């Protein structure tokens, strides 16, 4: 087996045993799939301002419980779905530190969350560089104006279309087989929201005889600022208009066997504008079929 073929084989084994979000440049093989039951959350008492500094805010939280899935319809076409079927957003009570009086009562909403469905098309198969194109639709199934005055959101209320190109390749990390993937995409947003440029890089490797998978990601969003002013909408948290970020996110996945496993992800923004400044977390149980 040539070196390149060995690495390509590793990538498939790797992706089957501990799948990553959207699979990078590699589509799912026909009839195979990856499904994860996850919970993602962020609790934030500070946010990035429009000039990248950090200001405080009343504590807000968003908790998404949902399913992420990929399934190979053909050897080139993979269906992708991200469905947070239970999304909870809340903010804390605001209480006077002097008198203990409740100034502004906290609120919470529970609803279906904004979801994503898409198709990934493998542009290259069994090549050293795996290229794929993804068309993903953002479905506004969440609540864009919940609670008193519409201050709580489990969605942004807009339908968007992301076109993304991924390029992935295997490489050696010492004695370990590893992979790397980069992507860039354009997200066309509606309902007054600014369009976005998406970009990212990730690399990962399997450790301890494939029992543990370690992945690090660096990804971001750059707003084109061609929509409504942020000040003209009520959205905050992760749903504000014209928000930007560059996020560093390590993930560990423990592969119980070839089929089942669980994962934990941490993400922290290195840079941001009009978005929460606290870390987010995600845990999940995944299965390969």
């Amino acid at each position, binding site marked *: 087996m040539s070196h390149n073929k060995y690495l390509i084989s590793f990538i498939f084994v790797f992706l089957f045993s501990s799948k990553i979000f959207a699979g990078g440049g590699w589509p799912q093989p026909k009839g195979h799939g990856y499904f994860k*039951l996850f*919970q993602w*959350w962020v609790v934030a*008492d500070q*946010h990035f*301002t*429009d*000039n990248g*500094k*950090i*200001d*405080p*805010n*009343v*504590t807000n*939280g968003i*908790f998404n*419980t949902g399913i992420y899935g990929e399934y190979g319809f053909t050897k080139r076409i993979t269906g992708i779905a991200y469905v947070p079927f*239970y999304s*909870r957003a*809340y*903010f*804390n*009570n*605001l*209480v*006077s*530190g*002097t*008198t203990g*009086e409740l*100034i*502004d009562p*906290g*609120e*919470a909403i529970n609803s279906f969350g904004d979801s994503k469905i898409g198709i990934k098309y493998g542009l290259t198969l069994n090549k050293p560089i795996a290229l794929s194109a993804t068309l993903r639709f953002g479905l506004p199934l969440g609540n864009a104006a919940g609670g008193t*005055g519409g*201050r709580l959101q489990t969605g942004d209320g807009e339908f968007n279309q992301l076109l993304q190109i991924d390029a992935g390749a295997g490489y050696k990390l010492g004695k370990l087989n590893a992979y790397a993937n980069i992507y860039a995409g354009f997200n066309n947003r509606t309902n007054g929201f600014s369009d976005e440029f998406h970009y990212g890089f990730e690399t990962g490797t399997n450790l301890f005889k494939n029992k543990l998978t370690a992945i690090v990601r660096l990804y971001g969003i750059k707003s084109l600022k061609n929509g409504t*002013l*942020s*000040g*003209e*909408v*009520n*959205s*905050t948290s992760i749903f*504000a*208009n*014209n928000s930007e970020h560059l996020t560093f996110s390590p993930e560990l996945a423990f592969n119980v066997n070839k089929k089942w496993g669980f994962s934990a992800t941490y993400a922290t923004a290195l840079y941001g*504008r*009009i978005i929460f400044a606290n870390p987010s977390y995600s845990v999940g*149980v995944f299965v390969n079929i």
Partner: protein
Amino acid sequence: MKNNLLLLFAILSLFSACIGDDFIDDEIDERLVVNNIIDSLQVGSTFLFETTFFNNVGQIEQRTINWMSTNEDVLSINENGLATALAAGNTSLIANTVLDDNSTLEVDFPLVVTEEEVVIEEPEFEERSGVIQTTTFYTLEGDFVLREETDQLVLEIAENYQASSSLPGLYIYLTNNPNTTNGALEIGRVNIFSGAHSYIIPDVDINAYSHILYFCKPFNVKVGDGEIQ
């Protein structure tokens, strides 16, 4: 197993997303204001002074006010603030109240008692002003004038005003505590982010509030303020 996993995630979600308490530092200095200060009074006449006490969170609170004249041969004043002009001369009036920590908050002002007729006129339309300043990393600056008109106030924001258009849901208030919207009067949502503009505020006394306050409702956080001088 799938049902158990779903239950586990639902429970985890419910328990980890409870509404808690955020405490804000909203303590300010207490204020005692004499609402109708005059500078002269005719011998033989009386005048009732009125006061307002604002507590340490800027709320109006009923307090026992102690009145004193430094020259009781010229003017006497009772515990209700009713002053009686006795003889021509100069005096100072002192109003005070004892605070919770047993310290005394005091206001004093001079008053001349004269044999000549004194006509106490209704004050003409007043005008107060100030400077808007940011208390965050968001841009917010400019001058303002609060002007009295018949049955309304006009808050005129000057040409040098600038505010960030990035804050979702920026609102402006009149308040006696610049740290909170508690007890504040909401003027309206900010839709203009640079240049001169104005707000009409009906049925409010020009001396009723000490500050204007800019507040982001969705983030529930103060953005800036301006003391009304």
